[in-house]
């Protein structure tokens, strides 16, 4: 006589399934929300200053009238059809003062932005950084003292030069804006291959024209 098969053998355990519907609902709500607030093109702002003659008041330092005027670095980056010249303190190709005038010819049809950045870093490292005397309150382009959201003053390095963060740019009339922006990038910061760090250079460009 055959035995009746056991009930246990008939029982097949159900596979436990996670209930994904609440998560799915949440994701379906989140996706349109994030789609509307996504930034597809990352935009930035490049601040510039006016040519010295046209700038109304202002100044980079917070020096008062009683104090003796600080010396000027007068850093100039002048572009022409054949290359770019970097000079300080009014040095020219004629004066040829070593360390004060450098010229970088056009390389492969474009300006040698890397060489310009390297030269500007040399000027900042050798002349500007050693001139720091302490800290002082920052002022904006309108000459107003800058303060933090909590009301405390914004403190910046007090340089020994009046225009220690300024670079004057001169370029040919037909130079496209994209090339100018590349030049401004090269004058603002420098990727130091020795330390691997991005070094600050001259973040305040003043654009003018030298006839």
């Amino acid at each position, binding site marked *: 006589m055959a035995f009746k098969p056991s009930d246990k053998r008939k029982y097949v355990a159900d596979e436990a*399934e996670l209930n*994904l*519907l609440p*998560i*799915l609902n949440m*994701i*379906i709500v*989140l*996706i349109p929300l*994030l*789609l509307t*607030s*996504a*930034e*597809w*093109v*990352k*935009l*930035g*702002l*490049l*601040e*510039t*200053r*006016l*040519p010295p003659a*046209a*700038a*109304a008041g*202002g100044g980079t330092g917070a020096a008062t009238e009683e104090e003796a005027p600080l010396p000027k670095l007068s850093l100039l980056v002048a572009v022409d059809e054949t290359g770019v010249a970097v000079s300080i303190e009014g040095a020219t190709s004629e004066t040829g003062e070593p360390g004060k005038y450098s010229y970088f010819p056009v390389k492969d049809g474009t300006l040698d932005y890397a060489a310009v950045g390297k030269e500007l870093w040399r000027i900042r490292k050798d002349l500007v950084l050693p001139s720091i005397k302490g800290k002082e309150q920052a002022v*904006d*382009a*309108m000459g107003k003292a800058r303060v933090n959201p909590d009301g405390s003053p914004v403190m910046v390095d007090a340089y020994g030069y009046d225009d220690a963060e300024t670079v004057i740019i001169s*370029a*040919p*009339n*037909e*130079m*496209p*804006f*994209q090339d*100018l*922006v*590349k030049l*401004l*990038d090269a004058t*603002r*910061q420098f990727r130091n291959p020795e330390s691997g760090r991005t070094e600050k250079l001259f973040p305040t460009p003043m*654009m*003018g*024209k030298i*006839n």
Partner: protein
Amino acid sequence: MAAPSNMRKNSGRGNKEENIPLASMMDIFTNMLLFLIMSYSATGMLVEQVDSLELPQSNIDTTPRASLAIVVDSGKLSGVPGVYAEEKGKRTTQLDTGETLFYVPTGADAQNPDAMSLPGLGQFLADRAADLKDREAQLGIPFDGQITIQADAFVDYNSILKVLKTCGDHEFAMTQFVVIKSE
């Protein structure tokens, strides 16, 4: 006894729960969610890029701020060069034509400071400066002289200088150009 009809035999099918496989859908949604979180901006788009304008690329890392905005178009993509007022990513009025924008003063005109100014833009800025100063007096919102410029990557240096000079002459000394951030 009559055999049950085929319809009755099959009617049990409808009661059986059929699960849609959600795992693959969840994978897609999770990837989308991560991608969108990466491109999420808490502040939203304070500055919108104007159509038919190729902005220059820069490695700058500052974030845009909302302020009075103008567009300087070389006409390379739009075909209509000039200076425009801008609002919410759209050009509103043409302030100066391409002819005025691209004019390079030469000879005796090179010494004339007015030759480097844009009259339409100047008038617009003078009006806006007066409005913003009124707002400062009435509401206490400070007039900071900020102006945001969306300039085409192909606009020439002479035109950029003209725009900057005109802004400076009309109390907008804090000029900022919109660029596309690149790595």
